[in-house]
C-alpha cells in the first residue's frame, strides 16, 4: 500500500479547513451586509437578511462593496482626532465629518509635535490648538517632527526661577518661568533665573520649611517653603543647608533604584518603580508627609515567585490556571499574562481555547511577557521535521515513527507506523489548542489509530486449543503503544484520555484502546 505525498497534503488541508470551520462555529460565507443589525451593530456581514434591521440598508454582498458601509475616516473637528475604519452613518450620527479616504491621506489628520508649556504631544494641528485652549496656554506646533519619541524628547523644560514681586507692601515670591513672571501683571516684578524663593539675597518673606509635597506630572518629592513654592527635591541631609535653599539643584541623594520607601531622599523614579505619594502607616520619613512609594508588587504571593521574591513594577510574566502538578494545555486551561504595575497585579487572559499562548523572556533580568497566537494550524501540512520545528513560523512538535495514513482514494485511515516508503513522522501542535468539544469532535478524529496485529497458530496448536500467537505488530498489544497513541491524540487538541485543568478525569478514559483478539 503506497501513498502520494501531494494528495496527502491536500487531504490534510481539507480536514483542517473543516476543523477551522468547526472551531469558528459559523459558516465562513456571509451573505448580507446589514447597515444595522437587529442587535444594534453597524455594518456587519450576516448570514441571513432577517438579521438586519429593516429600517436600514441591507444587500447581498460584502460590506466593502456597499455605499453605506464603506469604511472611511471620521474626523472629530472639535477635538481634532481622526478615527479610521468608521462607517459614514456612525460618524455623522454625532456630527463628525466623514471622508472615504484613509487617515494617512488626509491633511487634517497628519500628526505633528505639539508643544504645550513644558509638555509635548504627538497630535494633529487642530488637537494641538484644542489642548491649548483647554489648558489656557499658548502652543507651538511643529510639522517637521514626524516621530512620537522625537516629539516627546523635544519637550523643553523652561528654566524656572524666583519671580519676586510686591503684594500688600510685602516682598514675596513665586517660583515660575520667566515668561509667566513677566506676563503675571504683578507689581514691581523681578525674575531671578535659577534661584529659589528662599534665597536669602532675594529678601522675600518665603522661608524654608521641613514640609514636603508631590508635584503634578513629576515623580519626585519636593520641599516647600512658607509661600507654598516648591524647593529642591527632598533630601533630609540638606534641610538646613542654606545653599540647598538658594538655587535650583539636581538631587544628589539618589540610589539609582528609585529610592523606594526612603526616609531621607525623595528622588523617585516611576520607571525604576517609585513615585511620590503620601506616606502611610508603617512608612516614615525624616521630614514631611510624602515618600517615594515602592510600586513593586511586594505583597504578591503567587506560586510563580519564590518565597521572598516578588514581581517588580512594570514586569509581566506568564501563568496558567492548570492545577499544580498537572501538564499544560489541558481541557479548560488558558494562558494568562500577569502584569505588575503600581503595586498591583492584574491578570490578562490571552484567549479562550488556547488560541493564544503566553511567551516570556527574562534574559535582561526583567520579566517581559506577551500573548501571541498559537501557531498550530499549519503543523499538519509539514512532512519533515525541519519545517515542522521552525519556531519562527509555527508552534509544532515532530513525532517520529508514526504518520497520518491516507489510502489511495484519499480517505483518512488513522495513524500508522512509519515504514521506508512513508513519512518518517508527523507534525502536530506543540500547544494543544482547545475547542468546544462538547459540541463537536472536530480535529480529534485525526487521533484515531488502528493497528492490525497478525496472529498465527499451527494445526497442532489448534487441535490442542492453544491460543493464537501474534507475529506482526505485536507491540500494539502493549500499553506503551496505547499510551503513545493517546499522547498523539492529546496533542491534537482537547482529545484523548486525559484530565481537565482542575484534575478531573474525562468520562471516557477507560475506552482508550479497544482490542479485538481472535477467539481461541
Amino acid at each position, binding site marked *: 500500500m503506497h501513498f502520494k505525498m501531494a494528495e496527502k497534503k491536500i487531504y490534510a488541508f481539507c480536514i483542517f479547513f473543516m476543523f477551522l470551520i468547526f472551531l469558528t462555529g459559523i459558516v465562513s460565507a456571509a451573505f448580507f451586509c446589514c447597515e444595522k443589525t437587529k442587535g444594534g451593530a*453597524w455594518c456587519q456581514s450576516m448570514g441571513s437578511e432577517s438579521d438586519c434591521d429593516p429600517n436600514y440598508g441591507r444587500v447581498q454582498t460584502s460590506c466593502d462593496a456597499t455605499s453605506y458601509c464603506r469604511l472611511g475616516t471620521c474626523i472629530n473637528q472639535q477635538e481634532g482626532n481622526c*478615527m479610521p*475604519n468608521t462607517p459614514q452613518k456612525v460618524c455623522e450620527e*454625532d456630527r463628525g465629518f466623514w471622508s472615504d479616504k484613509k487617515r494617512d491621506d488626509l491633511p487634517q489628520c497628519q500628526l505633528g509635535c505639539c508643544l504645550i508649556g513644558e509638555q509635548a504631544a504627538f497630535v494633529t494641528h487642530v488637537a494641538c490648538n484644542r489642548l491649548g485652549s483647554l489648558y489656557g496656554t499658548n502652543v507651538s506646533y511643529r510639522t517637521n517632527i514626524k516621530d512620537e519619541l522625537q516629539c516627546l524628547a523635544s519637550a523643553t523644560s523652561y528654566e524656572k526661577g524666583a519671580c519676586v514681586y510686591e503684594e500688600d507692601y510685602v516682598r514675596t515670591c513665586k517660583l515660575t518661568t520667566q515668561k509667566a513672571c513677566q506676563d503675571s501683571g504683578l507689581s514691581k516684578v523681578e525674575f531671578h533665573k535659577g534661584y529659589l524663593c528662599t534665597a536669602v539675597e532675594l529678601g522675600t518673606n518665603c522661608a524654608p520649611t521641613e514640609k514636603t509635597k508631590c508635584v503634578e506630572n513629576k515623580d519626585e518629592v519636593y520641599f516647600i517653603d512658607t509661600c507654598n513654592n516648591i524647593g529642591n527635591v527632598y533630601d533630609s541631609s540638606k534641610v538646613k543647608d542654606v545653599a540647598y535653599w538658594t538655587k535650583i539643584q539636581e538631587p544628589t541623594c539618589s540610589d539609582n533604584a528609585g529610592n523606594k520607601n526612603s526616609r531621607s531622599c525623595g528622588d523617585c523614579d516611576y520607571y525604576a518603580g517609585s513615585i511620590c505619594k503620601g506616606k502611610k502607616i508603617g512608612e516614615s520619613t525624616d521630614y514631611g508627609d510624602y515618600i517615594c512609594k515602592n510600586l513593586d508588587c511586594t505583597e504578591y504571593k503567587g506560586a510563580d515567585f519564590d518565597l521572598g521574591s516578588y514581581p517588580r513594577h*512594570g514586569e509581566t510574566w506568564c501563568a496558567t490556571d492548570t492545577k499544580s502538578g498537572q501538564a499544560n494545555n489541558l481541557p479548560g486551561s488558558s494562558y494568562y499574562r500577569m502584569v505588575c504595575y*503600581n503595586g498591583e497585579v*492584574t491578570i490578562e487572559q490571552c484567549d479562550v481555547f488556547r*488560541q493564544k499562548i503566553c511567551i516570556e523572556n527574562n534574559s535582561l533580568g526583567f520579566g517581559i511577557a506577551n500573548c501571541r497566537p498559537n501557531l498550530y494550524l499549519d503543523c499538519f501540512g509539514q512532512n519533515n521535521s525541519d519545517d515542522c520545528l521552525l519556531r519562527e513560523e509555527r508552534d509544532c512538535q515532530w513525532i517520529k515513527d508514526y504518520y497520518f495514513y491516507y489510502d489511495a482514494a484519499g480517505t483518512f485511515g488513522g495513524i500508522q507506523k512509519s515504514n521506508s516508503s512513508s513519512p518518517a513522522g508527523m507534525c502536530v501542535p506543540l500547544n494543544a489548542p482547545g475547542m468546544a468539544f462538547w459540541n463537536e469532535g472536530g480535529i480529534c478524529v485525526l487521533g484515531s489509530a488502528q493497528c492490525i496485529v497478525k496472529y498465527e497458530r499451527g494445526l497442532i496448536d489448534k487441535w490442542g486449543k492453544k491460543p493464537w500467537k501474534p507475529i506482526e505488530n505485536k507491540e500494539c498489544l502493549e500499553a506503551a503503544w496505547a499510551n503513545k497513541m493517546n499522547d498523539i491524540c492529546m496533542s491534537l487538541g482537547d482529545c484523548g484520555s486525559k484530565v481537565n485543568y482542575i484534575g478531573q478525569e474525562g468520562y471516557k478514559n477507560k475506552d482508550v484502546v479497544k482490542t479485538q483478539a481472535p477467539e481461541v
Partner: protein
Amino acid sequence: MKSGEGKLGKKDAVASTIFLKKNRRGQVTIFIIIAIMIVALGLLVYFMYPKLKTTLGIGTKDPVGYIQSCVEDDIKEATETVSLQGGSISPEHYILYDDAKVEYLCYTNEYYKLCTVQQAMLKQHIESEIKNKINQKVDSCFNSLKEDYEKRGYNFQLKTGTKKVELLPKRVIATFDYSLTLTKENTEKYTSFNFILDNNLYELVAIAESIVESETLQGDAETTLYMAYYPDLKVEKKIKEDGTKIYILTDRNKGNKFQFASRSNAF
C-alpha cells in the same frame, strides 16, 4: 387658737423659710437653663440658617446654589452610568459584564477580522447622553425654584436657553444658559447656571479612543503601554468566551472608571 394652729411655730417658720429659699434657687436654676437653651438655639439658627432654609424648603437666597444642589445627584448618577456602560445611558449593542450592559465601541461578528468602529465621536456622544438624561430634571429644578420664589412674593422671570454638558480635563461641566430675573424690592439677575463635577472622564475617554483605534487597526491593544505613560491609570482587559474584550480604565487616585467592549480579530 391653740399653739401651732393657724400660726406658724418657730420650727415651721424655719422649715418654711428653707423650703422657700430652696424653691427660689430651683426657679433660678430653671431660668438659667432656659436662658442657656435660648442662647444656644439662637446660635444654632444663626450658623445653620442657610442649610436649615434649604432643608426646610424655606427658600434660598441663591438660585445658582439651589440649581447646583438640585441637579447634582442626577449628573453624578448619569456620569457613573455612562462610564460603566461604554458611554451610553441605554446601550443598544452590548455585552453583559458584572451586571452592566457594556456597549461595543468596535465590533465584528466574524473571526479573524478587524472590527468596525461603532462609536467614532465618543466624547460628544457621552456629553449628549448625559445632557439628555438630566434634561427633565433641570426643567423640574427650575420649576421648583420658580414656585419657591413666587411663594415668597418675588417676580420670577426665566428665559430658557441651551443646556450643555462638556467633558473637560479633570471635570464634567453642565451649563444651563438660562436667564433669570428676580424682582421684589431689588432686582437680581442671573445669566447662567452651571454645575462642575470633579471627574476624570475626559482623560479616560481619550485613552478609550486610542484603544479603539488600536483594536480596529491591529486587532488588539497593549495595556501596559498606557500604564507606562500614565502613572495614575490602571488598564485591565477581560476576555469573554466569544473573543470579546472588556477594557476597564480606572483612575487609581479618584477611582473614576470607564469601561467598554470591543471584538476584533477574534480567534
